[in-house]
């Protein structure tokens, strides 16, 4: 008996050493330093996700805890009987872990068939389909072995069996799950909004970088950023991204899981010189709305968006654009806005109707209002600006506000998301110069995309942008309410809220809108809200083009919002507003009122108090 036990214990030791060895190997290859501090932070993040996350986060947590417990059981096996309080503690802890593992197992079994269908639909190669199944079955085996081991631990005298199960499972971990773990340790706190920048226009213009050496896209997998490649190779077919993806949910020909797996499988069969477009279609890449749900939900820190942007830049570089996409770029390059209207006289109505001065008038100002393309030209969207200006007037801040008039152009977001990095950086550099010229310290925006551009995209281009405080309208309004500058009435009305991806998920701005709305009405949260919001369908320049789909993303979202029972949806971005407004009238006969936050606040404000 003892002989069997210690023989199997030796196997456990071997398997654990294999894990540690591969950890050392891959962390060196990916140049990741694994310190105690980093692991501690990751642990805190995992617990955070357990508490605030969705079911997949909880399953992930159960698997991690189950694995750690099972390894601890096996390693401590020979001495556990002497450490009986620890033994009992571990046995008690194993119960919820077993429950969580069983839950994960059932989900994984369901997924096996579903993902196979999707792999075929999205044109996965034979190799890819086989590998997909293989990885999923390995995960199922690992989960099953862990469950079995944790159960066996309850039965005395079967230590050798527990050891065998543990050793087998550990070898799978060493082989398949060390790389994703390192990817996670490296990336778990990388914000969704972080982008790889293929070149710096400023350095090209100054001659510091030779323009001829600059490459925007990729012809070979090997030309992808190495973090992106590491991301693709770290995918173990968990399926969290796919479950969160609005494109997959509406039958577009994209699954973030399939996309990264296609690249990884192609790389291992065709090498680094294979062209990713051998296995990926153009519309697959255009189907993405860059909402970031995939990156946000991935339990192993895969950056799907990095891959998508690289592929988009390639298509732009090669001019593989249909008329809709190229006319967006044309408008951006020639017209100074994304809508294709003359920029001349842009927003002149603000001065006429509200007496607010333009920055170039020379009057000192505290806040600069960036109106944005959509509210500048769309009549309905303009109403939200009017409401915001009325709120600002009510708060007595009209004199402290200015706007840019014709000097305002595009923030550049649609260009960057479409993959036209040069046009984006051109806009960014121009706008940063304008902000410098007027000594702007505070910027007010109504659009989630402008907010993200100015806070994240621009700061990475010019650090002077860190000196500008950017307010989304929700943040400004909340500040005015806090200060008592405006007062709201409470009404007995059920309302719901649509968080824009670029505000909530990209930037974590989720509180001000909730504080404001819960003061005025009964806020009914949709199932997917806050940082876990579901896209309206306009992001990633999707407002300007169409791709094949079974259902409109905006229709899916309006259904989710309508399921709250509320008849009013408050939006925080003019593009979300336009998409959901259309969806409401097409899908719900207009029974859902879709209204911008500023309009809702203005309607519920005690005026002239």
């Amino acid at each position, binding site marked *: 008996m003892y002989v069997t036990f210690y023989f199997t214990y030796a196997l456990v030791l071997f398997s654990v050493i294999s894990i540690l060895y591969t950890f050392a190997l891959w962390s060196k290859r990916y140049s990741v330093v694994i310190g105690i501090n980093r692991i501690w932070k990751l642990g805190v993040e995992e617990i955070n996700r357990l508490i605030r996350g969705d079911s997949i986060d909880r399953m992930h947590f159960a698997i991690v805890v189950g694995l750690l417990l099972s390894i601890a059981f096996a390693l401590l096996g020979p001495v556990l009987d002497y450490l009986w309080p620890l033994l009992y503690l571990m046995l008690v802890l194993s119960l919820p872990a077993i429950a969580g593992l069983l839950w994960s197992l059932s989900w994984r079994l369901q997924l096996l068939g579903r993902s196979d269908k999707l792999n075929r639909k999205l044109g996965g190669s034979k190799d890819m389909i086989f590998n997909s199944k293989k990885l999923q079955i390995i995960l199922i085996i690992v989960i099953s072995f862990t469950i079995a081991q944790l159960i066996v631990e309850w039965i005395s005298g079967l230590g050798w069996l527990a050891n065998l199960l543990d050793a087998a499972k550990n070898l799978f971990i060493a082989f398949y799950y060390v790389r994703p773990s390192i990817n996670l340790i490296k990336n778990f706190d990388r914000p969704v909004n972080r982008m790889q920048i293929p070149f710096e226009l400023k350095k090209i213009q100054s001659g510091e970088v030779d323009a001829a050496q600059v490459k925007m896209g990729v012809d070979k997998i090997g030309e992808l950023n190495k973090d992106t490649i590491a991301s693709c190779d770290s995918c173990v077919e968990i399926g969290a991204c796919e479950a969160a993806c609005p494109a997959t949910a509406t039958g577009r020909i994209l699954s973030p899981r399939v996309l990264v797996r296609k690249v990884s499988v192609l790389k291992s069969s065709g090498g680094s010189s294979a062209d990713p477009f051998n296995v990926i279609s153009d519309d697959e890449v255009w189907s993405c709305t860059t909402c970031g749900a995939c990156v946000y939900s991935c339990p192993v820190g895969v950056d799907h968006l990095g891959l998508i942007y690289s592929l988009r830049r390639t298509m732009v570089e090669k001019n593989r654009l249909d008329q*809709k996409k190229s006319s967006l770029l044309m408008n951006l390059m020639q017209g100074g806005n994304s*809508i294709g209207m003359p920029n001349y006289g842009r927003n002149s109505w603000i001065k006429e109707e509200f007496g607010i001065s333009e920055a170039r008038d020379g009057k000192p100002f505290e806040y600069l209002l960036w109106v944005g393309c959509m509210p500048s*030209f*769309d009549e309905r969207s303009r109403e939200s600006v009017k409401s915001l200006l009325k709120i600002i007037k009510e708060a007595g801040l009209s004199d402290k506000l200015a706007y840019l008039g014709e000097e305002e152009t595009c923030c550049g977001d649609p260009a960057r998301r479409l993959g036209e990095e040069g046009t984006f950086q051109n806009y960014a550099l121009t706008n940063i110069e304008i902000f410098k010229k007027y000594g702007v310290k505070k910027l007010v925006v109504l659009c989630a995309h402008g907010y993200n551009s100015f806070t994240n995209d621009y700061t990475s281009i010019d650090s002077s942008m860190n000196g500008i405080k950017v307010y989304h309208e929700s943040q400004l309004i909340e500040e005015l309410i806090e200060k008592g500058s405006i007062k709201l009435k409470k009404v007995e009305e059920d309302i719901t809220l649509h968080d824009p991806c670029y505000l909530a998920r990209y930037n974590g701005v989720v509180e001000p809108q909730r504080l404001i709305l819960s003061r005025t009405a009964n806020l009914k949260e949709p199932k997917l809200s806050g940082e876990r919001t579901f896209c309206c369908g306009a992001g990633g320049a999707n*407002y300007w083009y*169409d791709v094949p789909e079974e259902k409109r993303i905006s229709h899916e979202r309006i259904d989710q919002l309508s399921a709250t029972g509320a008849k009013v949806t408050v939006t925080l971005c003019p593009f979300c507003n336009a998409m959901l407004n259309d*969806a409401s*009238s097409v899908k719900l006969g207009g029974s859902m009122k879709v209204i911008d936050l500023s309009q809702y606040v203005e309607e519920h404000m005690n005026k002239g108090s």
Partner: protein
Amino acid sequence: MKSLIFSESAEIIKEMLNFLNGKMEADVAFAGETSEAPLFAAKKVFIIDSYPYDPQTVALALEGIVGGYDYFFVGATTVGREVAAMVSQDMNMPMESEIMSFGLENGQAKVSRFYYGGKTVMEKITSARVFTVMAGISDQLVPDKPYEQEVIMVHVQSGGINLISREEKQKGSVDLTKADIIVAVGRGIGKKEGLEVAEQLASALGAELAGSRPVCSDLHWLGEERQVGLSGKRVKPKVYIALGISGQIQHIVGMRDSKTVIAINRDKSAPIFNECDYGLVGDLYAIVPKLVQAIRS
């Protein structure tokens, strides 16, 4: 001063001959698909023995001829523009594109062309020697009697592109951008049957039917080729009739160049009423049938 004219279209060559008539002597290079040389009012006619699928081949052929001329004029077609640019580059002859007039002043060329997206006309003294000429600005110059001319065949090696087969463009697809009258429907028509009402109006007026993004992309009541707007077609008909279109900027951008806009909508605060010349507030199901009746009678 001697010039050479090139186009792959005999009509455009005749236009350009008129364009230069009385200004300078012009010879012709032609690379059209034809069995016999068309009749041009020129002393020398070069026939390039290659149909210009491959601008590179045509450019190479022309480069052997153009050296003997002071100026080189090319019809501004898709092929012409490419050929002109290649010749300009290879022969180191500066180029001016899309000119609409040409004159000589103190031995230098003076041309005019549209500027600022067609809002202004720029006149310019230029040292350019290659010009692409806007199509359709002159009548054709056709000699009334056989013209005494030298016809020179220019044989060229086939370039990289060969003609394998030809396929007719698919028929039945609409081209909204060329329509004179457009009847456009928005989601305000409420139900798919509403299309019939719009179709009746369109057929009474001989108009093309179009739709907004919700109608085409969301509801698929009309094909995508009929979508007008930011993510659809940009149209500029003489008359644009908007039925149940609220006027989101997405749509307005596609139709704001229309000459006359008529809007029918129930919602009197619909933004479309700021964009139209004539606006009717009311139920289109009541108004349009009467309109159709009135037009038919």
